[in-house]
């Protein structure tokens, strides 16, 4: 039998080295080292796994398999709904792929100074977009950020209800429910949905007044909303929440903040949102991340479940150091007595976010926000000209808008299937989650879409719905 060659990932897989190490410890075999494991716990056969592949074979296998995917490079895509196609500058990819960051270990401030600084710069730049002083290291998604923020508000107020706008991503709502419910648990937070106006997509303030009361820990709403609408009643919503002694939590898409007012301007106490639009590719949904920010007050800082990175002094005069702050209040420090739980998140994407924000600067954010607004509205107007097709909330949206196909007599499923045959990914089907909107789909237009792309969409939709 041919002796196996050493494995390319394992320097010590050379038989002579293994023998040398066994000799050094005086063991007769590797098997002796597993004497802690009772025989009855041991698997008595080799694992049945596919055979090992060389690098060339592996590459071929993966490339061939992945070729079965359709990409948004080959298709013209208008999918958004929580994961958006934005332009990612090449410099972002170059930085984020550096092997120095891509470790499987953790490092100390002394050894990983640069990484800690990059993390601090992520928080600092996001703080400028939000005009907020306290920004935690990112969490795993927007829904996770919202869930944690609601639990923070519940701890701060000692209350057990949250009012959440109904016009919310059903996936995000499901995550929020997971963080708040079920009713059997003593720590249960009731999620009470607030209606939206079917004409405007905005929050129904009368319903909000009904829902908010002395048990309300927080009111949570988003702008732009899941349905794309720029919620502009923030001041009224915050006033209603504050009058009841509740916190105001606002969810926001940060790529809009070059043109839209930051939520603190209209009364937000805690701001959450997504980080994916800031230089992270969609990655089939694996590019998502979330953030939590607030005023820099101890009452808030003490409730964060996330890690913080603070700038500090070092032993050398004038030198910046960066390290984890308030670590002991997390679950790492306090186990079940910590503030919820923390763990691996999306810090590699935080580096991408930092580079993206630095490249954009204030003017880049303004320009991209304006371009998105204009192209999205242009697309909506073209689509609204098609017979039987209606844009549900035609004014005051940012990059997404609801297209109602009900009057065409066609289902979104059918329309999207035909669009696909024309090389287009149509909007996200809303008909199941928002039956009140009929056969509607959520279309997303960003800075990557040219006028020609938008015209192609309108023309194809016109053709498809005419049948």
């Amino acid at each position: 039998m041919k002796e196996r060659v050493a494995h390319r990932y394992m320097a010590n897989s050379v038989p002579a080295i293994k023998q040398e190490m066994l000799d050094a410890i005086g063991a007769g075999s590797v098997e002796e080292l597993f004497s802690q494991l009772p025989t009855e716990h041991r698997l008595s056969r080799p694992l049945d796994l596919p055979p090992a592949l060389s690098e060339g074979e592996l590459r071929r296998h993966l490339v061939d398999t992945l070729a079965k995917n359709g990409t948004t490079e080959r298709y013209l895509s208008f999918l958004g709904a929580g994961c958006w196609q934005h332009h990612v500058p090449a410099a972002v990819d170059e930085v984020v792929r550096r092997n120095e960051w891509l470790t499987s270990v953790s490092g100390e401030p002394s050894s990983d100074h640069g990484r800690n600084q990059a993390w601090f710069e992520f928080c600092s730049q996001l703080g400028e977009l939000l005009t907020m002083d306290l920004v935690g290291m990112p969490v795993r998604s927007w829904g996770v950020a919202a869930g944690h923020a609601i639990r923070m508000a519940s701890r701060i107020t000692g209350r057990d209800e949250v009012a959440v706008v109904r016009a919310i991503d059903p996936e995000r709502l499901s995550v929020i429910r997971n963080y708040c419910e079920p009713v059997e648990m003593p720590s249960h937070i009731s999620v009470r949905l607030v209606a939206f106006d079917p004409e405007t997509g905005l929050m129904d303030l009368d319903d909000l007044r009904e829902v908010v009361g002395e048990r309300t820990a927080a009111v949570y709403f988003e702008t732009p909303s899941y349905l794309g609408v720029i919620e502009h009643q923030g001041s009224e919503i915050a006033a209603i929440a504050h009058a009841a002694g509740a916190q105001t939590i606002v969810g926001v898409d940060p790529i809009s903040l070059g043109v839209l007012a930051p939520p603190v301007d209209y009364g937000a106490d805690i701001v959450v949102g997504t980080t994916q639009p800031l230089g992270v590719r969609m990655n089939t949904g694996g590019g998502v991340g979330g953030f939590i920010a607030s005023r820099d007050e101890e009452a808030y800082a003490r409730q964060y479940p996330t890690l913080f990175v603070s700038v500090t002094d070092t032993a050398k005069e004038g030198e910046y150091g960066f390290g984890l702050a308030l670590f002991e209040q997390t679950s790492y420090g306090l186990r079940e007595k910590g503030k919820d739980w923390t763990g691996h998140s999306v810090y590699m994407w935080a580096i991408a976010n930092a580079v993206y924000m630095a490249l954009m600067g204030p003017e880049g954010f303004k320009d991209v926000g304006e371009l998105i607004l204009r192209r999205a509205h242009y697309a909506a107007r073209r689509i609204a000209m098609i017979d039987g097709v209606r844009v549900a909330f035609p004014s005051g949206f940012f990059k997404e808008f609801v297209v109602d196909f009900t009057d065409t007599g066609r289902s979104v499923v059918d329309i999207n299937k035909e669009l696909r045959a024309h090389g287009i990914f149509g909007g996200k089907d809303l008909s199941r989650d928002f039956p009140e909107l009929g056969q509607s789909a959520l279309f997303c237009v960003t800075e990557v879409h040219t006028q020609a792309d938008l015209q192609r969409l309108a023309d194809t939709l016109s053709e498809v719905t005419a049948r």
Partner: protein
Amino acid sequence: MSATLREYHAPVWNEPVIMEMGYPGRRGVAVPEAEEEVGAEVGEATDLIPAAMRRHDRPALPEVSEPEVLYHYLRLSQQTLGMMGVSLFGTCTMKYNPQVNEAIAWRPEVTEVHPYQDDDTLQGTLEIVHRFDNILREMSGMDQFVFQAGGGADAAYTSCAVTRAYHASRGELEQRDEIITTIQTHPSNAATAAAAGFKVITLMLDEDGYPSLDALKAAVSDRTAALMVNNPDDMGVYNPEMREWVRVVHEAGGLCFYDSANFNGMMSKVRAREIGFDACMFMLHKTFGAPKSGVGGPAVGAYGCSAELAPFVPTPVVAHDGERYYLDHDRPKSCGKIREFWGNVPVVLKAYAWIRAMGAEGVAEASDISVLANNYMERGLLAIRGVTRSHPDATSPRLEMTRYSLAQMKEETGVDVHDVQNRMTDFGVDAMWTSHEPWLIPEPFTPEAGEMYGKEALDTWIAVLARISDEAYSDPEILKTAPHNQAVHRLDHETMEDPARWAMTWRAYLRKRANTVTEG
């Protein structure tokens, strides 16, 4: 077992914070203008925004050109030791992050794909996820895996959510409100159980290094919802009574969750299901070779469970009907979503690629080598003055890591484990991991040799600690003031805990510094 220490000095760039850089008017991107017709059709962008929502100020972001941004962040990467030195960071299972995996993961078939695309346009990704699900089933004996959880702690939370849904489906959730864990099990198990609304019962260790069966029996009752436990723990000690533990918990009607954080030494040796566990978790960003970005992620906690629990897992589940792969959303008993979409797909891809590069023999060998290397290290480390091992009376060889103590060194020299950590980085060796809280062993440290580093690197690590021990006994000041060869000097940690001085953003730093100057 000797090594000559190399000269090492980190690059020092004295890099400003990005917020201090730039010049008004500079920019790193040029966003195109809207086409003329678009502009003519919709008018000014500002008019498309409700008046109350227009931004009036400019965010105080730096104004920097593309090369300035690029080189700033490349310099920061250079000031990050990462895995360029020798990083034996315990409980992390150091793995090489194969470059071919990175190359594939950045192809557009992975990056430029939307999770809501029709399943017909996701067949490649779905096939890989499904194949990997089958591989993990074989490695654990479980019947279903999901990859939604964004890390190990998130998988522990997933387990709590599934536990809630399972007991609720039987009408027992109000009664079953306790989760049992052990003090040596990762803090996330206790923390997620509490966050999910359970009371947490923590068993303390006995002399053998694990809690006694009697302690478990005293804790178990008809209020037990689940057991959440690591085995081995991160001292390298394996609880040989685990089958009996699982039996006792099952008899009381509870579920058993195996946190396979320390799976490296167990791969191909032990399967969670055969010990009786109902569910388990693997960290793809550690054990399966995907990077975890300096404790940050993106990561994946692969959650696997028995057929009995499968109806309760988060949706969607990747399935195959014999011809076509699809996302099964129709699972009425599901606990709902732990996170949006269906997981960090690039991480799953990298883990799948790693296992395909290893094969069954490679996996078994990695496990062997990590345990062999740990025992090889142990012999060298225990020969160093001031170093002792936890549970010295437990004589069986430790598994893939060992918990040591520098209590003796501290007593004799005043040098503590943090001094040693800082000094290690002066030699291009990453600071060692101490221990999760609470510290059961004084001045702990926990190196994990893993299978990636060669014997020479392990010898270097041992030699560095030996040198530091000599310094502790001859010139402790050099340790107290370390690091000396790093990109940065020792941090002032007090500032970071003081509300008046901590600064998690540059805005906060400027404001607080201004306050200090005014007051001064």
